[in-house]
């Protein structure tokens, strides 16, 4: 079975997935001034990865997006988020916004809100890696493993 889809789909995916990824990162980083935020941006970034896997087939995509890489980014995103929370101890307590104490930025501009940008960034990394990893793990089930039986009864 040839891996992936026709060359038209492959070329389009190659051109478009970069823009999808950048759009996802934009939605995540401007989460404090417009709708979106870490989770929505992470899902869009993961959608770019899923597009690559669908267009090129799982074997080819595995060379770029490995499952252990997804696990590592997942753990790094979560660790970063907890680090931001722990650094709040410098300014008083758990999860205190230690960057907003010095009057950084005005409301409505990009550089405002303190640690919210950092939190959004780490959530972006975690959600994108988590969703891409989950998709890769589910895509690993091949038809060859299924026993000979009727696929699903009607109900």
């Amino acid at each position: 079975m040839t891996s992936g889809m026709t060359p038209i789909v492959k070329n389009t995916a190659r051109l478009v997935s970069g823009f999808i990824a950048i759009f996802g990162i934009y939605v995540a980083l401007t989460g404090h001034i417009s709708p979106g935020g870490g989770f929505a941006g992470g899902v869009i970034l993961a959608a770019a990865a899923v597009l690559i896997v669908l267009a090129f087939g799982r074997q080819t995509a595995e060379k770029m997006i490995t499952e252990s890489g997804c696990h590592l980014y997942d753990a790094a995103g979560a660790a970063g988020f907890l680090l931001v929370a722990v650094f709040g101890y410098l300014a008083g307590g758990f999860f205190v916004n230690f960057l907003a104490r010095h009057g950084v930025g005005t409301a409505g501009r990009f550089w405002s809100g303190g640690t919210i940008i950092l939190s959004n960034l780490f959530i972006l990394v975690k959600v994108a890696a988590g969703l891409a990893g989950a998709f890769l793990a589910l895509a690993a089930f091949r038809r060859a493993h299924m026993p000979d039986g009727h696929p699903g009864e009607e109900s």
Partner: protein
Amino acid sequence: MASIVPLMVGLPLGVAFAVVAMAHAKPLKRLTGLVAVLAVLLNFAIALALLGADVPRIFLGGWGPDPARTLGIEVLCDGLTKMMAVTINAVALVSLLFAGAYMRRFTKVWLFQALFLLMTGAMNGVVLAGDLFNLFVFLEIAAIASYALVAFGCESEELEAAFRYLVLGTIGSAFILLGVTVLYSVTGQLNMAAVAGKLAAIGPGPAVLLAAAALIGGLALKAAMVPFHAWLPDAHPSAPAPISAMLSGVLIKASGVYAIARLIFNVFGPTPQYAAILIVLGAASMVIGMLMAMGQWDLKRLLAYSSISQAGYIILAFGVAAEVLSRATPDRAVAGLCLFGGLFHLLNHAAFKSLLFLASGSIEQQVGTRQLKEMGGLTRRMKVTAFCCRIGALSIAGVPPFNGFFSKLIILLGLAMAQQYVLCAIAAAVAVGTLLMYVRVQRYVLEGPPGDRVARAGEAPALMCLALVVLTIVCIAAGLAIVPLREHLLGPARDVLLNATNALSMGAMP
């Protein structure tokens, strides 16, 4: 001291992801178990250290209790929280030690440790949560981790049990969220103390009753009360033994019984209707759990049904206490006695049910079977496991001087003093039934001529025996040391529930 309380949630979560990262770096892969045990040990140490400290109300992020800015997420740390935190972390530590030796037959043990740490951190989060939505989120995290852990072995039985558990658990969670939604729409607040204040001002009405019904329904499903118990007899036996111990010992308590107690006593306030619901749920669970356990020949299934019965004891005690508190002239001493009995039984059940499940895991690994008829004569082949199993069975059956006897006695006394003589008779009958059931378990498992499988079995590995011995010591000590336990651990917890809706705002308000 107050500022490190949120670390009790953050530490297991962070270490869970550190374990995932370490497992992908070759030289660190063998250390993941050690790191996990250290994290839970540190959590347990913090929980013990908090017992003596008087902690004011903590608001995360510094968004303090100033009435003009009640925006913060509150972290509770009163007597009930401290007692539950000590219980959860102790059982988690012992189960993780046991799992160090038991899980060697599985691959990807690092995945098990990461999920276990997630579940422990989330359960700590449930008891530390001070507002309704945080409670729901941590309930969900603990539940999702437990679904994955029940299906860990990926055999056909485990997958089927985990799928049924997942579907029923999600229905329960949806109803909990529905209850939180209706409460938010009625009061406009999510913080538990603020909701309690607003509900006292608004008074009962159809919306509040709908919220209470949805919340009690969803939480009763998490606590495996009859008639919402259908998932437990499949899920608990199919899980690996340390997970069965955690699920039966603490998860149904922390996510089900604790949440019901916190919401009914501290947020809604005890009224006759809620007390009646709790009494019916508790009594039905007690009786039906015991009846169904009597007919079981699979050891772990018997223990799972017995969990339903014992959790029914706790809910019955809480229900009668709520009924006493909601009378025109509430008798605080009698209600306090019922609450003390229920909380003590919660602690004891965590100890001896975990002990029994871990012992059954030890037996399953060494002998290779879970059927009562194929065991026998264990005292001669596996001395340590058999001794600990006997102590556990005697404790749950309510034989003096072990802890089960005292907690059941206090519950019966409380029921009698509250003039609920019918319930007292039912509880006494169920206690006698439990005694008979566990005498039968002992006869088949421990006494008698050794079956052929038992004759070839050896003693369990040292780490598993260590975990069993620790829990046995807890069972014996909790029976002998009631007075220090009452002063430091259970007394403050009982006072929190006794103060009903005033308890949450009684922190140190600046």
